[in-house]
C-alpha cells in the first residue's frame, strides 16, 4: 500500500511538470499584453516597452520558463504584475472562501443526492423515481448562474433570509459563516446533486439485482438495512468515483458562483487575473487547482481499498 502511495505521489511530478509547461506556453502564446494594460491610454510605445522590460516580459520564452520553474521549485509562485503582491499571499487570502464553499457544497450534495438516488432505485418506475430523475435533468440543464440569481432574488432580495453577497470568515462564527454560504452552495450543488443522484440510482439498480441482496431479503433483513447496509456499500465505488470527478465540476462552477455571490475566492481571482493578463497569478492558481485535482484522485483511489477490500494495489 505505502509503495503504491509513494509511486502515485511520485507520478504527480511529471503530471505537474506537464501542467506547468502547458499553462506557461498557453499564456505565452495567448494574445494580450499586461504592459499595455498597465501603461494605459496615455503611454507612448517607449513607455510600454519600458514597463514590459521592467516586468521581464521582453525576455525569451525559455529564459522566462526556466526562471519560473526554478522559483516554483523553491516554493515561490512569483509576484502579481498588477498588485505587486506575492501570488502565494493572494492565493492564501482566497483559499478559505473557496474551500468553505466546496466543503458546504459537498456536504449538501452528498446528504441530498445519495438518499435521493437510493430512494429512486428502490421506488423504480414510480412517481418518486420520475421526480428524482426530473430533478436530475433540471440540475444538469439549468446553468449555475441562473439558479444563483433566482435564489438571490427569492431568498435574499424578497424574503431577506440570507445576504445577497459576500463572505464571512469561519473565525467570526459559524452562523455568519454559513449564512453567506447557503445560497451559493445550493446554486453550485444543483449540478453535483444531479450527477451523484443519477449515478447512485443506476448503481443501486444494478446492485439490487444481485444474488446477495436476494439472500439478505430471504434472511428477513429490513428494507433500510438492505438498502443502506448491503446495497449502498457495494454501490459505493462508482459513487465515490463520480464524487471525485465532480471536484472538477465544483472548481469550474465555483468560478461562476463566486462571481454571482461576490465571494472572494480562487475562482474570482482566476477570472480577474485572466482578464488582466496577470500571468503569475493565472499560472499559480491553475497549478494549484491541478495539484488539488491530482491529490483528490489519489485520495479516491485509496478510498477504494476501504470500500472494497477486494481491491489491492
Amino acid at each position, binding site marked *: 500500500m505505502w509503495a503504491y502511495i509513494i509511486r502515485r505521489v511520485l507520478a504527480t511530478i511529471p503530471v505537474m511538470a506537464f501542467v506547468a509547461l502547458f499553462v506557461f506556453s498557453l499564456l505565452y502564446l495567448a494574445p494580450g499584453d499586461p504592459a499595455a494594460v498597465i501603461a494605459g491610454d*496615455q503611454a507612448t510605445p517607449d513607455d510600454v516597452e519600458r514597463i514590459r522590460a521592467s516586468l521581464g516580459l521582453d525576455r525569451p520564452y525559455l529564459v522566462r520558463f526556466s526562471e519560473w520553474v526554478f522559483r516554483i521549485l523553491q516554493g515561490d509562485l512569483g509576484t502579481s504584475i498588477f498588485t505587486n503582491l506575492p501570488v502565494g499571499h493572494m492565493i492564501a487570502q482566497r483559499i478559505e472562501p473557496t474551500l468553505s464553499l466546496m466543503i458546504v457544497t459537498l456536504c449538501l450534495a452528498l446528504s441530498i443526492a445519495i438518499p435521493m438516488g437510493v430512494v429512486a432505485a428502490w421506488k423504480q418506475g414510480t412517481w418518486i423515481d420520475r421526480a428524482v430523475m426530473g430533478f436530475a435533468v433540471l440540475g444538469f440543464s439549468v446553468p449555475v448562474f441562473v439558479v444563483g440569481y433566482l435564489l438571490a432574488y427569492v431568498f435574499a432580495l424578497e424574503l431577506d433570509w440570507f*445576504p445577497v453577497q459576500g463572505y464571512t470568515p469561519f473565525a467570526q462564527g459559524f452562523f455568519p459563516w454559513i449564512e453567506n454560504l447557503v445560497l451559493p452552495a445550493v446554486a453550485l450543488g444543483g449540478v453535483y446533486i444531479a450527477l451523484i443522484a443519477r449515478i447512485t440510482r443506476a448503481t443501486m439498480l444494478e446492485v439490487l439485482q444481485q444474488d446477495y441482496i436476494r439472500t439478505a431479503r430471504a434472511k428477513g433483513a429490513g428494507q433500510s438495512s438492505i438498502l443502506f447496509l448491503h446495497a449502498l456499500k457495494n454501490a459505493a465505488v462508482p459513487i465515490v468515483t463520480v464524487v471525485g470527478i465532480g471536484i472538477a465540476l465544483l472548481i469550474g462552477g465555483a468560478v461562476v458562483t463566486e462571481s*454571482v455571490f*461576490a465571494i472572494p475566492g480562487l475562482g474570482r481571482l482566476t477570472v*480577474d487575473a485572466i482578464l488582466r493578463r496577470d500571468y503569475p497569478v493565472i499560472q499559480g492558481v491553475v497549478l494549484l487547482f491541478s495539484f488539488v485535482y491530482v491529490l483528490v484522485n489519489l485520495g479516491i483511489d485509496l478510498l477504494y481499498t476501504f470500500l472494497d477490500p477486494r481491491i489491492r494495489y
Partner: protein
Amino acid sequence: MQRRELFAATAAAAMTSPAVAQAPRILRFVPQANLTSLDPIWTTANVTRNHAYMVYDTLYGLDAEFNARPQMASGHSIEDGGKRITITLRAGLRWHDGERVTAADCVQSLVRWMRRNPSGQQLARQLDELVAVDDTSFRFRLKKPFPLLFSALASPVNPAPFMMPERIAATDAFQQIREAIGSGPFKFNSREYNSGSLVVYERNGDYVPNPQGRPSFTAGPKVANFDRIEWRIITDAATATAALQTGEIDWFEQPPPEIQQLLRRNRNITQEPIDPLPLSAILRFNFLHGPFDKKEMRQAILPAVNQADYMSAVVGTDPALIRTGVGVFTPGTPLASDVGLEALTGPRSIDRAKALLRDAGYTNQLIRLIGPTDILAPAAITQVAGDMFRRLGVNLDFVLTDWGTVVQRRASREPIERGGWNVFLTSFSSTDFMDPAGHFPLRGSGANSWPGWPTVPRLEELRDAWFDAPDLDAQKAIARDMQRTAMDEVPFIPVGAYMSVTAHRSNLRDRVPGFALFWNLRRA
C-alpha cells in the same frame, strides 16, 4: 432596516449592557473596477486615481469652475516674470506614518510625476531647477514662464500629482511603489487589503482640512464623515444592485443602463450623474495603413456618423444623459466649441458617405474594426460602428475580443494582412478631454502618438502654443484652431458624449460631484 438586521440587532441588544460606545460610521461602496494597483503614478486606471484622492493630497485642487486652488500649499510667489515660482506648504501637514510633510517630499513626488504625466513632461522640458528652499517651501526655476503650472498641479488627469513621502516617491516612475502612505483624509488599511474583494480605508484623525473655501471637486476642505470606508469589489452588476437594494452596500459607482431603469422604481435609492461633465467617445483611425491613410477616406465617414445613435447605445434614450454635436473637447468645459463641426452636425446620410468613399477611391479594401465585448461603453459604440460600416457596404472584418486583447492589438502597427487594424472605438473621462495636455487622440506626432499614429504637425504646433498661451482667451482661440484642424485631418471622429450615472442609498448626502470622492459625504 432589513429583517435580518433587525433580528441581529434585537439579539445583540438583549446580550449587551447599556454601553455608551458609538458605533463606527461605515460606508460600503462598490467601485467601477477592482483596485489592482495602489500606485497612481504607475497606472492610469481611474479606480486607482479615486483611491489616490482618498489617501494622498495634492498641492493644488481643481474647483468645479476649473480654477486651481491651494490645497496642501498655503500659497505661492511668482518672480522674474514668471520664471521663478516658490510654493509654500500649509503648516501641520503629516504623512500617515506620523512624519512631517516636507518640501523635499513634494519635490521628489513632482519629479516622479513629471516622468509620466504629459503636462509634467512639458514642464520638465522647461525646467532649469526644482529644489527645496527649506522644510516648508520649494522653488521652480524655469527657462521660460509656464502659465499652466498651477492648472497642471491641480489637474486630476491621470497620473495626477499626488504627494508622497520622499523615500517612496524616489521609486522609479515605471516601477510600482510598495506602500500607500499619503497625507490625505483617509488612511489605506494594508492589513485588510484583498485585491479583487475588499479595500478598506480609515479616517485620518490627524488630517487638517484646508481652511479655505468650500468643498468643490478636488479643492476646498476635505472633511471625512465616515470612520471606515469599505470598497467591496463586486464584479457582477446584478449582485451589486441587489446588495444596494437590501442595504448591504451604500453606493454603487457605475450601474449599467438596464440596471438604472430597475433602480428608478426604488425610493430608497438615488441615481444621479456622478460627474456634472460627460465622458467623450471617439472612433479612431489608423493612419499607417489604407484605406484610412488618406484624409479623404477619413472625411468620407463623417456624414455617416450619428452621435445620437452611438450615445443611445451606451446610456439608453434619456436625452438628459446624452450630448450630441460634440467636438474634440469635453462639452461644458472652457475649451469646448462648435467650430468646424458642420460635418458632424449637418444632415446625416449614409448615401452621401458612400459617394464620398467612392470619390476618395475606395475599392473594396478590407477594413478591420476591432473592439471589446467586456467593457460597457466601448462595446456598445463598437457595435454601432460595425452597423454603420455594414450599411456603408465596405468590406468589413469585425473583430470582437476582450479588452485586454484590444489594448494589445491596437498597439500593433502591422499591416492589415498581418493582423493590423483600421478602426477602433473607446471612451474617455471628462478630465481627459478638458484640454490639449492629456488629450492623446489629439496628438499628431506620428510614431510617438497614441495608437493610430497620425502625423499632423499643425496639431503639435498648436499644442505647444497652448502651453505657452498667456490667458484663457488665448487658450480658447488655440483650442478652436485645434478643433478645426482635427475635423479637417480627422485623426478621430467624436461620436458623442454621455453622462455616467451613479446610484446610492438616498440617505447619503452632500456628495462632491466629479468622480467617486469620499470627503464631505455623510449619512443623514
